[in-house]
């Protein structure tokens, strides 16, 4: 499903990640590792946000050779998302909806699940960190992407949103087979965390448990 081949990432000529080969089958994966080990860098590379040496392919579609088709299958949410403060959440939801060709009904469902209705029409400048986080998760869940990459998806969420996010991820995986690649520092004893496989980023490379 997800294949990394001869992937190397440098920052200021320092080698941060060196992954000769990595193959992941469909499933829920938790990326673990110490601060600065390169978890976010790995996820950003897989999401097609930053350049790197080598190639990453998903369902035999190469990110380097066919960036558009690859991006149609992958979506992403940041750990600490930043969006234009003058925009409303709804404007971003509509932007994603138009790019990913999703119906208004599906968007309304997502907004309902994460209780975004109350403030989605307000400008993002008025949102708290948790509200912005929920918006970024909703944006990542828009569309029928086959791989969803989430950096620290559960931080800053209130207990209700936390439960909703865990439930949504598990249901989406079970119903559609969508793969999830997520990073987390927390050792949470939830069904979601227990059902995922663990990948550790260590010594510039990755280990699968």
């Amino acid at each position, binding site marked *: 499903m997800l294949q990394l081949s001869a992937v190397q990432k440098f920052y200021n000529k320092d080698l941060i990640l060196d992954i000769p080969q990595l193959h992941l089958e469909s499933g829920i994966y938790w990326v673990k590792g110490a601060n600065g080990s390169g978890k976010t860098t790995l996820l950003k590379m897989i*999401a097609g946000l930053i350049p790197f040496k080598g190639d990453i392919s998903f369902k035999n579609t190469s990110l380097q050779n066919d960036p558009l088709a690859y991006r149609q299958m992958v979506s992403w949410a*940041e750990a600490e998302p930043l969006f234009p403060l003058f925009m409303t959440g709804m404007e971003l939801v509509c932007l994603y909806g138009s790019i990913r060709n999703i119906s208004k009904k599906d968007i309304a469902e997502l907004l309902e699940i994460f209780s975004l209705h109350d403030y989605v029409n307000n400008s993002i400048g008025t949102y708290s960190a948790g509200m912005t986080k929920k918006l970024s998760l909703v944006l990542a869940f828009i569309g029928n992407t086959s791989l969803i990459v989430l950096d620290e998806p559960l931080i800053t969420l209130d207990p209700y949103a936390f439960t909703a996010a865990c439930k949504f991820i598990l249901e989406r995986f079970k119903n559609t087979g969508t793969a999830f690649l997520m990073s987390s520092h927390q050792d949470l004893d939830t069904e979601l965390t227990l059902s995922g496989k663990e990948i550790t980023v260590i010594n510039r490379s990755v280990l699968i448990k």
Partner: protein
Amino acid sequence: MNSPFKILFRSFVQSFYKENAGFFVFLFTMMFYIVVQLNGAGLFAYHYSLASGTLKNNSFLLIVFFGWLLYARKYVAFVSNTIYKQEYSFLYIFNCLGKAKRLRLFVFIELLLLLPILLYGVFMILVGLQQHLYFPLLSVMLFLMSLCIVPAAWHVYLLNDPSKRSLLQWKNGIMLPRLLSPYPIILLRFVANKQRIMWAGVKLFTCGVLYKLAQNNVEAGGFDNRFTFIFFNFGILANGIIMYRIREFEETSLSFYRGVPVSLIKRFIQYALTCLVLLLPEFITAGMLVPVYLHYEDAIRFILCGYSLLLLMNSITFLKNFSMQEYLKILLLIFCVQYLFLLTIGLTVLYLLFFILAGILFSKGYYKFEQVIKK
């Protein structure tokens, strides 16, 4: 420098000048290099006549006051926004100082922020004194004082009561018609919200220069538009600073967009649309000058040169994470190249080359760009 003043100085003054370095380089080049060379008179003689003319003509003085007011609005907004940044939340400790002391501190800060205008204002006052123009010089003094005191009082008030912020901000900025696809609209809304003063200033300069020089050129009996082109082009280059700011904004608030499934061609078209809207005032001005003051061919060349240049400046920002200084050096280099083309091969080759280069650099650079964390 005592400690409270030092902190305010570093928080507001230093960061304001740093952030607007490009604007000041542009302003000083225009005021003390380009315009003086154009005029042919010495630096002092030119500015002396300019100050004297401003003081003698009430309507011109009002225009100058308006320009100063726009500048003041820029630093007032900068300080106000800084006060509300999370990393500057420690500034609330200043509320423990007495009101008079707070006001005094902020007056000094506003004085420093106003310094470029203040120095020119002092020069105008001296000219006014020498020519016995007491009423206009008094109005200049009062206006400059109010530009220091009113913002200082406002900032003291703002620091004391954060809920007043909304009074200063334009809610949601200027609404743009939904004729464009969403992404260019987001970029244009950013310009309307955060760069409107810069944009208006650049447009005022570019369109004003184009209009006046083309008009003078014809009235003086000539039709050589090379000179007009150089100045018009200088204004277009100043648009590069807006493009740079747009890219900074993209990297901070729209970084997700690189990950969404939009083809490279569509992305390029979106930038091309953004550039087109940004340059509309220049295009309209060129259109207004046709056919009396500008030949059709010249107007088309001006428009295509300006447009291709802005597209190229945008594409350049994807090559590397340039600092503003590096970027300005590149703009200067482009200016020299354009000058060479103007004198030799001509503008048609130039804009064709720029369009092609813009496309190539964008396709090579877009997915490879990364905001590098500098050591």
